[in-house]
């Protein structure tokens, strides 16, 4: 124990010193500019230098093995690194720059990829140079993903891909795509799917951005028209794409539920913002008693979610049953985040409907955009209803209905 703690302290000092030397002070407080989920971010000057240094060190993907461009750190060391970065106002832009690369595709390649695939694909992701998107959903295959129809045909030395994907986040700015495709249409739906990786920079791939209710266009329709994927870019076994693809979605859920849905990195606690907009009574209580109750309820739910994350982490260390409680995290995180947005909007009143212009503060406009974009949380990554199906079937063991109509 004590030895482990000493090692961590040594690492902490090392991380601190490295950050001191390498993180450009000019970027302090500018994380927001580089951490946006929506859209393309130009990265240049100090930010570019910072990305390169971080990438070379492997600390953009701190727990990945060193031989594939990662930092080779333990989970605990990675946590320390995160703390030290936060302490000096540093941030890690690489996960955002790599699209789905760091959070989802990379971990899946680490698990299922061949040595050649790891060598070719992981270092680019780790440096934040290669951006990935995910081609799962299709117009007729949403929650029922297994009914996807995009086809891959064996052309001897390559796969030829034809079909349409939709809601492909970042497709128009991505370099590579991880796609689920049908490689056998004669077997049961789930047994004829494969996971292929293909470059987006080829004539057979076309993207058309779709505008969201938040005004941004973070996703696209993606058309594959005799597109080509190399034989060496099948991830996992042929017709085993359902397993690989589902594993990848678990990484997606992990990345969505691990954060702090209530904090959002904003410095001002929501109750302080509420007091600023709504005012207080003689005893210092929020002047709107109805809002006050709902705000208290929300803070409690956010706390309960945070406590559940810590409990699951503690149980995982103690090796008790982990999975049961973990199944609730996606819906819990989603409802905390969405409620927070709704309350923020309500707190702002008329100022909380701004779209544009000098009459609204940047914070107010951002709140509206965040609120709108946040509605997606209960749709993607397994919708709210699909999560409840998973809990009721897989965790609680309730059977599927046979009722018709």
């Amino acid at each position, binding site marked *: 124990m004590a030895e482990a703690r000493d090692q961590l302290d040594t690492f902490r000092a090392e991380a601190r010193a490295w950050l001191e030397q390498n993180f450009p002070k000019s970027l302090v407080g500018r994380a927001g500019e580089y951490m946006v989920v929506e859209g393309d971010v130009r990265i240049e000057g100090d930010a570019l230098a910072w990305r390169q240094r971080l990438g070379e060190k492997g600390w953009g993907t701190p727990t990945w093995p060193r031989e594939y461009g990662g930092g080779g750190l333990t989970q605990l060391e990675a946590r320390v690194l995160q703390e030290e970065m936060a302490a000096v106002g540093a941030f890690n832009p690489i996960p955002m720059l790599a699209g789905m690369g760091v959070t989802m595709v990379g971990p899946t390649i680490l698990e299922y990829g061949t040595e050649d695939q790891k060598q070719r694909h992981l270092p680019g992701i780790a440096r934040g140079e290669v951006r990935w998107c995910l081609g799962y959903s299709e117009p007729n295959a949403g929650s029922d993903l297994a009914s996807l129809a995009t086809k891959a045909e064996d052309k001897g030395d390559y796969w030829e891909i034809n079909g349409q994907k939709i809601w492909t986040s970042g497709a128009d700015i991505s370099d590579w795509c991880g796609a689920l495709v049908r490689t056998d249409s004669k077997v049961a739906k789930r047994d004829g799917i494969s996971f292929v990786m293909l470059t987006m920079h080829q004539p057979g791939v076309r993207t058309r951005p779709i505008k969201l209710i938040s005004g941004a266009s973070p996703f696209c329709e993606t058309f594959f028209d005799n597109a080509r994927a190399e034989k060496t870019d099948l991830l996992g076994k042929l017709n085993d794409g359902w397993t690989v693809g589902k594993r990848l979605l678990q990484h997606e859920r992990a990345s969505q539920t691990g954060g702090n849905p209530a904090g959002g990195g904003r410095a001002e*606690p929501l*109750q*302080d913002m*509420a*007091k600023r907009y709504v005012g*207080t009574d003689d005893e*210092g*209580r*929020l002047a709107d008693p109805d809002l*006050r*109750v709902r*705000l*208290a*309820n929300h*803070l*409690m*739910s956010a*706390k*309960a*979610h945070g*406590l*559940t994350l*810590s*409990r699951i982490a*503690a*149980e995982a*260390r*103690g090796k*008790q049953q982990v999975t*049961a*409680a973990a199944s*609730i995290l996606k*819906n*819990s995180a989603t409802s905390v985040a969405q409620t927070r947005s709704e309350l923020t909007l309500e707190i702002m009143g008329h100022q909380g409907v701004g779209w544009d212009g000098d009459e609204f503060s940047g914070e107010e406009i951002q709140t509206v955009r965040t609120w709108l974009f946040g509605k997606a949380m209960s749709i993607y990554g397994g919708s709210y*209803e699909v*999560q*409840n*199906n998973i*809990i*009721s*079937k897989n*965790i*609680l*063991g*309730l*059977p*599927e*209905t*046979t*009722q018709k109509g």
Partner: protein
Amino acid sequence: MAALTEEQTMLKDQAKAWVSEQAPVAAFRKVRDSGVAACFAAETWAGMVDLGWTGILVPEVYGGSGMGYLTMGILLEETGRHLTASPLVASALVGATALLQGGSDAQKSAWLPKVVDGSAILTLAVDEGPKHAPESVALRAERAGSGYRLTGTKTFVLEGGAATLLVVAARTAGKPGETAGITLFLVPADARGVTRTALRTSDCRGYANIAFDGVEVGADAVLGTVDGGWAVLEATLDRARAGIAAEMLGTAAEAFDMTLNYLKTRVQFGQVIGSFQALGHRAAELFTEMELARSCVEGALQSIDANAKDVAQMCSLAKCKAGAFLFNMSNQLIQIHGGIGMTDEYDAGFYLKRARAVEAIYGGQAYHRNRYAILHGF
């Protein structure tokens, strides 16, 4: 579950086995039907004493095991599951806590060993009206010779009928509504001037209203400091809230298990009713609420054991979240059981009645939401 030590895991297993064999809901039903005044069976209580449960919070020097609040919570969750009737909460949790928080060495030496061996049953007498409002204490304690004279009435005192020693919150200065001027007294339940009226409640737990008509006690009856009892009272109430939240979690978790079992066995339209998505989703949502409530309850108990700064917030959070889940769960228990849930012969009704009664103890959801907001500065 929180990551438990080996000792805690053993205790949990032992408690699970003992409660389901010795003190199941059937035993509770028997107590109710027989109309025992104390609302618990003497042998159940004796069994708990034998198992050492009354000494979980009491340090070894006073004859207990000093295992702490998370351990106490583990036991209360199990007794909550089966609605096991006993003064465990009132005496071994709340009474022991009051002594530990405010007692002098002499008071602790005199009473803690008796809490442990069951020869004394303690309880806290705090509320005076239909709502939990500890700062509203109005029961007067006036100087009388070297001691005090107590006059006033306490309501809904948990195990007030069976208790032998009352921890009474009285006003020695200031006005009701002020936290300063409250003093705690240890008053033998058989003191002259104490009149107890047993309450018959829907949940069939032991409660009493207690009138104090010029009850005289010595100066050594003061627990903690004169006029400064609030800190001890609040610390005691918070630990009581976390403990009772653990009991509520157990009650609700059992209601969940009963419901899930029914979803898997009751057949309508040619299939088990749990296959209907409307009910499957309801079960999933209740499960989600249960896991979140569990994190709050265990978190509060752990923060008490760690003597953390946020004990007050955490205990209000735990009582509120366990309360909200138990409220929903007890309603769904009845609804999903259909007609059979409405019958007295079936146990579901016991859980519903207990749910509402325990909600009111030491502050309901509204009380704790308000407190949580105040503690967060708004």
